[in-house]
């Protein structure tokens, strides 16, 4: 086979490498998991898994998945009629009977007319005389569905008695990642405020803690980095598929947790608490829900934690000196004179009585509790779950060493993003067609026009190859950068073409002609590079995508595609 010469071969090589780097998938099936609820997580599903089918129906789009999942897992509430030795009640239950049973005695009742301590006699017309009767019926009371979720790796089959909440997105069709403004999500710039100026080390600590918090929250689709603006050290966070309110309420709160007895601190979040029970119903969960006052419901949550030895010692030292308040004259049981007060960001969230048996003891097991409120039981329950998760997260990660101020927040709707991407691609395509028309009018020679178009499209393709290789996030600014560098590309090709076409009578060799063209091209390249470089560091790197796209674009152009263009012309025109 005839060789094309070094310059053209290099171009072909780069095109092949770019194709590999972009790794386009021509047919994609299923949807990618973006976040999971507790139930599906405990079944082993992971963020990033690709779901192929639900109950043997193939998943095509995220919208289609939402419907399938709803059909597969939503269960209607069931009416429960219950009779105890003292009362009877009729209510609706969905995923939970709203009470627990121990020795046929009601525990943790959330039914308004049934109290703890009553003995269960009959439920849904079935008499309960002994434990066996209860065991026979308890799993048949509530409806549940078998859900089969098939991922790329394996099939998961499990029972669901409430609607699963699995958040998904389209599977990426290639290695090219879309930036926030094309995908939708929130970008925040946070500034630490404290008595001291944050050092680089502080910023790194902050980034670690925030990153942990996001992980615990199931938000894996995120990017965090340090950013500098002027004198200030800032943190830039980009999270796909999250709203402004969620970021404000959760990431940016300092989360300073303190457990105090009187004025003395017993323990704080983070290193004092080596273990926090989370997502495990046996040691963490919502325990009771009641009508707190007129139209106001309250739900209490509890979860257990383990204290470090140091914190347990502090607990012992402080409680040693407290008095015991007996609950009744007869028993020796009672409470200590001061409660354990739990503060989150200097706000009292709960106050716990300490059992007299713990006086002066180095206990490591502590039960943390708190509540949530709302105008219906459901909203109160959600509020309590949210507060519990927040508290657990804060206890696990510890507080942020600084308060954070949101200095910039953008929230982009995912619908916008889709429109923008379509539109930007259209604008780019139209620009290429217009360039084609201009060169057709100017040169009227296919031997120039075709190589020019090949070069132009190759440049775009190789820039995208780089984007795929380095997992850039292509945002609007980067697309502008690509269009800009393609613009200079066309300029340079016109210089080369004119230099070669000009004055056929002249005796310059091909080498000489190209050398002359490339002097102009190299100076122009250096000037563009000089203009773009400062932008890499300016404004917290928010325009870095644009600067890098332009620089990479013109560099590829100058060193790979335009020399190849010269070589193509040389071969075609010399015949």
């Amino acid at each position: 086979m005839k060789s094309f010469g070094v310059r053209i071969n290099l171009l072909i090589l780069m095109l092949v490498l770019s194709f590999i780097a972009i790794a386009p998938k021509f047919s994609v099936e299923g949807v990618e998991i973006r976040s999971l609820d507790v139930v599906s997580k405990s079944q082993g599903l992971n963020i990033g898994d690709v779901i192929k089918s639900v109950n043997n129906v193939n998943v095509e789009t995220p919208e289609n998945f939402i419907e399938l999942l709803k059909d597969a897992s939503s269960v209607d509430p069931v009416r429960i009629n219950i009779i105890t030795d003292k009362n009877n009640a009729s209510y609706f239950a969905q995923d939970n009977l709203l009470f627990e049973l121990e020795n046929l005695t009601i525990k943790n009742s959330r039914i308004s007319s049934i109290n703890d301590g009553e003995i269960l006699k009959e439920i849904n017309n079935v008499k309960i005389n002994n434990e066996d009767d209860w065991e026979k019926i308890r799993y048949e009371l509530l409806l549940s569905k078998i859900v089969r979720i098939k991922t790329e790796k394996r099939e998961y089959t499990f029972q669901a008695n409430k609607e699963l909440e699995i958040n998904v997105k389209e599977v990426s069709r290639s290695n090219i990642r879309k930036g926030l403004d094309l995908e939708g999500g929130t970008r925040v710039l946070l500034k630490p405020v404290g008595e001291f100026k944050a050092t680089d080390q502080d910023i790194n600590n902050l980034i670690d803690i925030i990153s942990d918090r996001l992980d615990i929250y199931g938000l894996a689709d995120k990017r965090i980095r340090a950013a500098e603006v002027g004198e200030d050290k800032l943190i830039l966070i980009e999270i796909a598929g999250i709203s402004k309110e969620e970021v404000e309420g959760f990431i940016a709160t300092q989360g300073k947790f303190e457990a105090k007895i009187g004025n003395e601190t017993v323990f704080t979040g983070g290193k004092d608490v080596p273990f926090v029970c989370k997502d495990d119903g046996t040691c963490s969960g919502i325990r009771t829900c009641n009508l707190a006052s007129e139209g106001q419901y309250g739900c209490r949550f509890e979860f257990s934690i383990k204290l470090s030895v140091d914190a347990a010692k502090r607990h012992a030292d402080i409680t040693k000196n407290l008095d015991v308040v007996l609950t009744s004259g007869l028993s020796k049981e009672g409470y200590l004179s001061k409660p354990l007060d739990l503060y989150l960001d200097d706000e009292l969230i709960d106050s716990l009585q300490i059992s007299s048996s713990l006086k002066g003891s180095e206990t490591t097991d502590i039960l943390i509790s708190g509540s949530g409120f709302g105008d219906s039981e459901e909203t109160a329950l959600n509020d309590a779950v949210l507060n519990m998760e927040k508290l657990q997260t804060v206890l696990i990660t510890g507080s942020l060493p600084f308060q954070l101020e949101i200095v910039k927040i953008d929230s982009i709707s995912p619908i916008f993003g889709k429109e923008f991407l379509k539109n930007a691609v259209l604008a780019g395509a139209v620009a290429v067609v217009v360039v084609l028309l201009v060169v057709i009018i100017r040169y009227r020679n296919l031997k120039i026009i075709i190589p020019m178009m090949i070069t132009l499209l190759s440049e775009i393709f190789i820039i995208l190859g780089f984007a795929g290789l380095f997992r850039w996030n292509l945002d609007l600014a980067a697309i502008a950068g690509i269009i800009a560098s393609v613009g200079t590309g066309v300029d340079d090709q016109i210089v080369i073409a004119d230099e070669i076409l000009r004055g056929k009578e002249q005796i310059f060799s091909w080498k000489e002609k190209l050398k002359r063209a490339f002097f102009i091209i190299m100076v122009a390249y250096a000037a563009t590079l000089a203009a773009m470089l400062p932008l890499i560091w300016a404004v917290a790197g928010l325009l870095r995508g644009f600067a890098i796209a332009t620089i990479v674009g013109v560099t590829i152009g100058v060193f790979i595609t335009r020399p190849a263009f010269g070589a193509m012309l040389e071969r075609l025109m010399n015949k």
Partner: protein
Amino acid sequence: MNWESFLEKNYKKLFVVPIILLVFSLIVVGSFFYRTGELFERDVSLKGGVSATIYEKNIDAEKLEKFLEEKLNTDIFVRKLGDVASNKNIGVVVEIGDEASDELKNNIEEATGISLSRENFSIEVVSSSLGESFYQGLLKAVLISFALMAVVIFVAFRSFIPSAAVLLSAFLDIIFPLAIIELLGIKINAAGIAAFLLVIGYSVDTDILLTTKVLKRREGNLYSRIIDSAKTGLTMTFATLTALSVAYVVTTSFVLKQMFLIIVIALLVDIVSTYFMNSGILIWYCKKRGEHEKFWS
């Protein structure tokens, strides 16, 4: 008529056009600076404040502006967001100078009766201190860019007047679009400043081509070499100009639209600054050096 003899006779007259444009731009930008103490009007991203975009077709922009101004008691700026390709309204953008984002959202909901969610609402909140340091940072970036570009030009041509002519041309390419943007009452955003950096790159392309041909080539005479470089240079400029003009019309993104608009204006004025001004300076420079006789063929 012969372009070369036209140029030879008229290059001094042609010089008037860039001078008028330069004086005009300096007056516009200078008077703007005198009135406001600012080089240009900055948008939310460079000044601080809130910019909210509502993605709904049937919003009356003027009514919304009036409602919000009465309610929040500050200057509110509402503009329509249109899709030129389909000639349809896509939504509106609301801009406000201070950072009352929660209030703004509730008030928009009240005014329009549309509930705003992640699906139809985008918001950008920038603190004024950050906006200010972005602004300072970007201005610094423009100055450094210009300085680095100047170094490149001086190293490449190694003679003062031709190099200075390239820089003067680049300066006109920056200040003229800035003046036009100010007259159009457009607020410049961060991406807009990035566009000015691109202008530096684009602007010098044609000047480098011209200067190289005039100073480093020996074929033809001075005027024919200028005309020759103009043929190439104008093709370059027209290709980019038409491509970006069409892209400007097509795009719905405000970020891209502003970038394209600035570059299009700059490319238009670049024709004047390169071929009326820079070439004039080069002709004058060559004549003064008395070298031009040497080039007559």
